[in-house]
C-alpha cells in the first residue's frame, strides 16, 4: 500500500483521499490499511469523539487539536480484536453539538445524495461514509439523535442501542447520562453481526454493567405512532412516511396511534440535561495537559483558561456551555436541572405505557428533508434545537431506536424511526432486516 489508504469492500476499491475530497467525511485517516481479502477482516470508521491510539481524537473541536489518546475506546478495541481495520475518524459537529454537521471545527461533510445539502448531525461523517463506501460500518454516537438524524438524511440504517449497552469508555463526553455508541451502515446484515461485538459489560464504564444479555431474535407485530408526533412534519416527508406505513401494513404489522402527551416535554428536558452535563464536561478544556496549549504560563489562570477556551471553542459550544452553566446555577437549578431530571422519568413512564400494548413506537426521523446549506444559515439556534423534536424523546429516555430509509423525495432520502423498550435491540434489528428485505435502500451515485 503506502500510497494513502483505500477502502476495499464488496470487491470494490476506493481511494479514500479522493472520496474525502468530494465528501469531507474523514478528518483523520489511517496511513495504511490492510486490503480486505480475508473474509474475517473488515474495515470500519469511528466518529471523531471516540478515542483511538493511532489517530487523533478531537471530537470535531479545535481545542483538542493534536490530541492522540494513549488508549482505544472499548467499542473500537472490540471491533479491532474482531478483525476490524480502522479506516479513519469521521467528521462531526463539535462535541456533538449540532443537527447538521455544520458546527465542525474541521470539514463539513456533504450529503451523498445532493452535495448542496447537509448530512445531518452530529454523526455527519459517519453517515456519509456509511452511505458512500459500499459495505462500510461506521461507529456513531448519539446524545439527542446524532445517529438517527444523519442516518435519515444520508439514507442508511442507524441503530442507537439502549443507554449503557455499549461501554462509553474512551468516548469524549457530551452528556454522560445520554451518550450512546451505535452503528450506521447501508448493509443491514452488519447490525446483527456487529452489535454483539461492541455490546457488553465493561468494568471501566459502570453504566455498562447493568445490562442483561443481548437477545437478537424477536418479533414485531404492533407498532404505535404518538398522536401529536406528525404535527410540524413537512408535507413531502409526511407523504413518504404514510406510504411506508402502508408498506408496514402489507408486511402484516399493525400500525395504530395513541396519545403520548408527555413526549412534548422531552425536548426542553433534554436541552437542560444535555447542556448542564456538557458544560461540566467541557470545563476541563483549558490549555493544560492535552490539546491546544498556549503555553504562556506567565499569566493568571483565569485569563489563561478563558483565552484558550474562547479562542478554540466554536460558537455553538460556547452557547451550550453558557446555557448549561446557567441551568445549574443557584436559584435556577431546581427550576431547570432538577425539573428536567424528574421530567425524564415522566417520559420514560409514558413510553413504558405505550410498550404495554405495542412492540415499537414509530415516527418519521426528521420533520424535513436534508436541508440545503444555504437554508441552514438562516435558522436560529432554537429552530435547530426544535428540529430534534422526534429524535430526542427516545434519547432522553435511554431507549434503543433505529432510523431506517423509508423512501425518497426527488432522489433525497427520508427516514423513519422505530423505538423499542430498554434492552430490546433485537426488535429493531429484526424490523430493519424485514424492512430491508421488502424495501432495500437506494445507493447514492458516488462521485470521484
Amino acid at each position, binding site marked *: 500500500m503506502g500510497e494513502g489508504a483505500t477502502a476495499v469492500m464488496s470487491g470494490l476499491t476506493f481511494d479514500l483521499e479522493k472520496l474525502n475530497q468530494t465528501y469531507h467525511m474523514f478528518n483523520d485517516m489511517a496511513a495504511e490499511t490492510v486490503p480486505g481479502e480475508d473474509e474475517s477482516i473488515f474495515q470500519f470508521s469511528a466518529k471523531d469523539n471516540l478515542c483511538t491510539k493511532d489517530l487523533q481524537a478531537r471530537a470535531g473541536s479545535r481545542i483538542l487539536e493534536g490530541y492522540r489518546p*494513549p*488508549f482505544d475506546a472499548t467499542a473500537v478495541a472490540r471491533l479491532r480484536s474482531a478483525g476490524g481495520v480502522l479506516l479513519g475518524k469521521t467528521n462531526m459537529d463539535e462535541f456533538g453539538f449540532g443537527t447538521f454537521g455544520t458546527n465542525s471545527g474541521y470539514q463539513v461533510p456533504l450529503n451523498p445524495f445532493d452535495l448542496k445539502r447537509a448530512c445531518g448531525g452530529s454523526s455527519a461523517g459517519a453517515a456519509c461514509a456509511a452511505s458512500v463506501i459500499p459495505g462500510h460500518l461506521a461507529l456513531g454516537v448519539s446524545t439527542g439523535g446524532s445517529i438517527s438524524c444523519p442516518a435519515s438524511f444520508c439514507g442508511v440504517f442507524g441503530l442507537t442501542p439502549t*443507554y*449503557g449497552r455499549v461501554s462509553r469508555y474512551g468516548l469524549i463526553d457530551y452528556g454522560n*447520562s445520554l451518550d450512546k455508541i451505535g452503528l450506521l451502515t447501508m448493509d443491514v446484515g452488519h447490525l446483527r453481526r456487529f452489535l454483539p461485538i461492541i455490546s457488553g459489560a465493561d*468494568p*471501566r464504564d459502570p*453504566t455498562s454493567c*447493568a445490562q442483561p444479555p443481548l437477545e437478537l431474535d424477536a418479533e414485531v407485530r404492533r407498532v404505535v405512532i404518538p398522536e401529536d408526533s406528525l404535527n410540524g412534519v413537512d408535507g413531502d416527508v409526511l407523504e413518504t412516511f404514510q406510504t411506508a406505513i402502508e408498506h408496514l401494513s402489507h408486511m402484516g404489522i399493525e400500525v395504530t396511534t395513541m396519545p403520548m402527551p*408527555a413526549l*412534548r*416535554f422531552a425536548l*426542553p*428536558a433534554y*436541552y*437542560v440535561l444535555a447542556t448542564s452535563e456538557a*458544560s461540566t464536561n467541557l*470545563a476541563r478544556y483549558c490549555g*493544560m*495537559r*492535552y490539546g491546544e496549549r498556549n*503555553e504562556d*504560563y*506567565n*499569566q*493568571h*489562570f*483565569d485569563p*489563561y*483558561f*478563558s*483565552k484558550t*477556551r*474562547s479562542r478554540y471553542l466554536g460558537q455553538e459550544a*460556547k*452557547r451550550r*456551555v*453558557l*446555557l448549561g*452553566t*446557567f441551568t445549574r*446555577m443557584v436559584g435556577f437549578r431546581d*427550576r*431547570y436541572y*432538577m*425539573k428536567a*431530571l*424528574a*421530567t*425524564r*422519568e*415522566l417520559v*420514560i413512564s409514558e413510553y413504558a405505557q405505550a410498550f404495554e400494548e405495542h412492540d415499537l413506537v414509530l415516527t418519521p426521523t426528521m420533520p424535513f428533508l436534508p436541508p440545503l446549506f444555504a437554508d441552514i444559515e438562516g435558522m*436560529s*439556534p432554537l429552530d435547530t*434545537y426544535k428540529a430534534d423534536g422526534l429524535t430526542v424523546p427516545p434519547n*432522553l*429516555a*435511554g*431507549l434503543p431506536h433505529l432510523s431506517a430509509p423509508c423512501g425518497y423525495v426527488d432522489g433525497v432520502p427520508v427516514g423513519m424511526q422505530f423505538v423499542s423498550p430498554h434492552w430490546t435491540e433485537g426488535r429493531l434489528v429484526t424490523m430493519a432486516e424485514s424492512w430491508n428485505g421488502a424495501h432495500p435502500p437506494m445507493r447514492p451515485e458516488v462521485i470521484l
Partner: protein
Amino acid sequence: MDIETVRNVAKLARLELSDEELQTFCNDLNDILEYLSMLDEAPDVECFGFNPIPVADVLREDEVGYDVDVDSLREMLTTYQGWVRGPRLS
C-alpha cells in the same frame, strides 16, 4: 436574562466574549429559555435519577494497576522536573 447575567455566566464558565458576542448570546439564550419554560407545565414527578436506566453498586476492588503506560502519559504533558506546568495562581 439580561446582558449582565450573560456576562456573569460567561465569567463563571471562563469564556471571554466580545460585546457583540454577549448581545448575540443574550438574544439566543432568551429565546431558548423562553422555550425551556415549557418545563414548568410538566407534571411534577416525585422520583429522579441521574441515568435513564438503573445503575447500582458497581465497584472496583482496591487493587493497584495501570492500563495505560505511565511513561507515554508523561510524554504528553508539558513538564518541568517531572511537575506539570500550569499558569500563575496569583
